[in-house]
């Protein structure tokens, strides 16, 4: 029995470490530049969901703070971006970012491109597809880039069998999916995708997470 437990644990450890690239190898410039302050840019919205830009913006702030970075107040920066004609991040995503360093003192700017944001009432899911790009305001280099397509499972399974049970679950799933705010998918997407981002100065693992595993540059997952 002990043999099986040991074998199981070894297999678990091996599988969790297999073919994993370290954060240092995946994001070397994050460790070179060690950005502290991040300006979150207004998202670039490529979907038909027009409110996505403003709604998604609110999902970025807390997760980046939790990663140990100084993140400028989203409300104040958004007002400033609107006043200074910087609301369209498309104009800056490949351009010179020195003005954000000069005006805000930001070391880096976080750009996001919302590629999809859908609600599937029948299947019971909310899905957000977003690319995250962190660029240095000093060198213009891309420090971090990762894209995710994250689905939130909103299906209901009551456990009732038979046709009636299936119909009840179908109706409950549709109601639950319709009642769940779309922003939930955006939040889950940000949390999931940024989970492998190296930590900033205020993080508990700042400058100690070089050997921790980084995720794939494109990630697709379903979460509850």
């Amino acid at each position, binding site marked *: 029995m*002990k043999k099986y*437990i*040991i074998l199981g*644990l*070894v297999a*678990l*450890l091996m599988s*969790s470490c297999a073919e994993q690239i370290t954060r240092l190898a995946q994001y070397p410039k994050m460790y070179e530049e060690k950005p*502290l*302050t991040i300006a979150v840019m207004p998202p670039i919205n490529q979907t038909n969901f027009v*409110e996505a830009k*403003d*709604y998604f*913006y*609110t*999902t970025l*702030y*807390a997760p980046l*703070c*939790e990663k*140990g*970075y*100084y*993140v*400028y*107040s*989203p*409300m*104040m920066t958004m007002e400033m971006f609107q006043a200074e004609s910087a609301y369209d991040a498309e104009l800056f995503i490949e351009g010179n970012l020195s003005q954000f360093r000069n*005006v*805000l*003192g930001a070391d880096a700017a976080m750009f996001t491109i919302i590629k999809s944001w859908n609600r599937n009432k029948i299947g019971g899911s909310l899905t957000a597809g977003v690319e995250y790009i962190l660029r240095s305001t000093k060198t213009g280099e891309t420090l971090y880039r990762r894209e995710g397509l994250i689905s939130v499972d909103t299906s209901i399974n009551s456990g009732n069998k038979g046709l009636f049970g299936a119909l009840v679950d179908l109706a409950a799933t549709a109601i639950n999916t319709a009642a769940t705010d779309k*922003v939930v998918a955006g*939040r889950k997407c940000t949390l999931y995708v940024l989970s492998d981002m190296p930590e900033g100065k*205020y*993080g*508990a693992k700042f400058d100690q997470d070089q050997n921790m595993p980084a995720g794939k540059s494109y990630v697709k997952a379903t979460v509850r």
Partner: protein
Amino acid sequence: MKKLILSALCVMAMTSCETQKSLYSWYDSEDATYMYTKRATEETLAKAMAQYEKVISKQEGLRKVVPPGVNAEYGYLLCKAGKKEEGLTLLRAEIKAYPESEKFISRIINQLEK
């Protein structure tokens, strides 16, 4: 020996799955600011401000300090609501807690003091 190996493997397996405690306590501030962004009314603003107060006064996260930007954002809203002195005090508190914010926050303070 076998016992030792088994214990070590268990510890390694457990640590690889450990979850990290939050750096900050956010309470319902994320929801409240989202609702305010979605529909800016006096009611949603009051709810957002109440959450900011809670985040500022009650921190139980790992760092036990107010998260970046919260003093500034709440102070800015207070200034806009006519509580200028109280608001400016919070904006200055942001610089004190996070000196890296000085460039931006000083600019805002200067604009508000005009």
